[in-house]
């Protein structure tokens, strides 16, 4: 829950497509058993939500990118997308 006026940065992290994702494959198999025959693929990732005080995205951008690269994401095996929500 956000406190007062703030903004959230959602970082969506998933394995690179070239790497086998056993969580996604296991989930896909079960989804097919449940009747989702048209489902082509499932990939499972991670969502990290960072909360900042209300401000401009620009002022947080460098900090978020640094945290993503150094801590939240392993760039060897993962890729990520950043979404801002206020």
């Amino acid at each position, binding site marked *: 829950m956000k406190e007062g006026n703030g903004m959230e940065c959602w970082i969506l992290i998933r394995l690179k497509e070239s790497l086998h994702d056993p969580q996604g494959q296991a989930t896909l198999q079960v989804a097919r058993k449940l009747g989702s025959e048209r489902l082509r693929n499932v990939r499972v990732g*991670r969502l990290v939500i960072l909360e900042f005080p209300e401000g401009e995205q620009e002022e947080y951008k460098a900090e978020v990118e640094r945290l993503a690269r150094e801590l939240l994401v392993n760039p060897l095996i993962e890729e990520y997308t950043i979404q801002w929500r206020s």
Partner: protein
Amino acid sequence: MALVVGVVVFPGTNCERETLRAFQHIPNVEAIPLWHNERNLEGVDLVILPGGFSYGDYLRAGALARFSPIMEAIGDFAHSGGLVLGICNGFQILVEAHLLPGALLRNEHSRFVSRWVKIRVERNDLPWTHGFQVGEILRMPVAHGEGRYASADDPSFSPELVVFRYAREEGDEGANPNGSEQDIAGVVNPSLNVLGLMPHPERAFFPYHPSQDGRRFFAGILSWLESRIPAE
């Protein structure tokens, strides 16, 4: 003078007692725990990052432990040529800290695997394996959920850095317990002084274990260190 082995303890590490106990049973060796908040290594001759679930494996296995204060001292120790060994979760921490190339991913079958494996020694021109023959098969147990090694296009990886492979004998389809690339079970850094492996040598040590190959492994590292101490 006794050799001193430091076993690093992070919150969630759970193999430190077995590892300390093993080294304490080797003559002329002192084994001490090193808490992750320490900033110096107390003059140890060998650093071991043991198995467990540091920081609950949150985020990614090893990703949070790598920022513990002691890791800076371990990085300095490694860069000055000191021997650093990561076992299981310790291996995961060392790849996250970029002290070893590549990455460790969730097992291919996505199950936790806990069983004995055979590993083949790929090279013996190292402090770690000088007492073994190339091609020699060692038996040790594994216990991990994220042990699938991937070189992941890491420019610091090269095939000659592979020290141990799961030994794939004919008809033994289950030899590789986690789906790791090229059956890799252990790798060394390009300077050859940092080693990580998924199997647990400390669980193949005492006479009541099904194998004592881990004892031979540890004893070999110590004999290499002893050979480097100048005669007084």
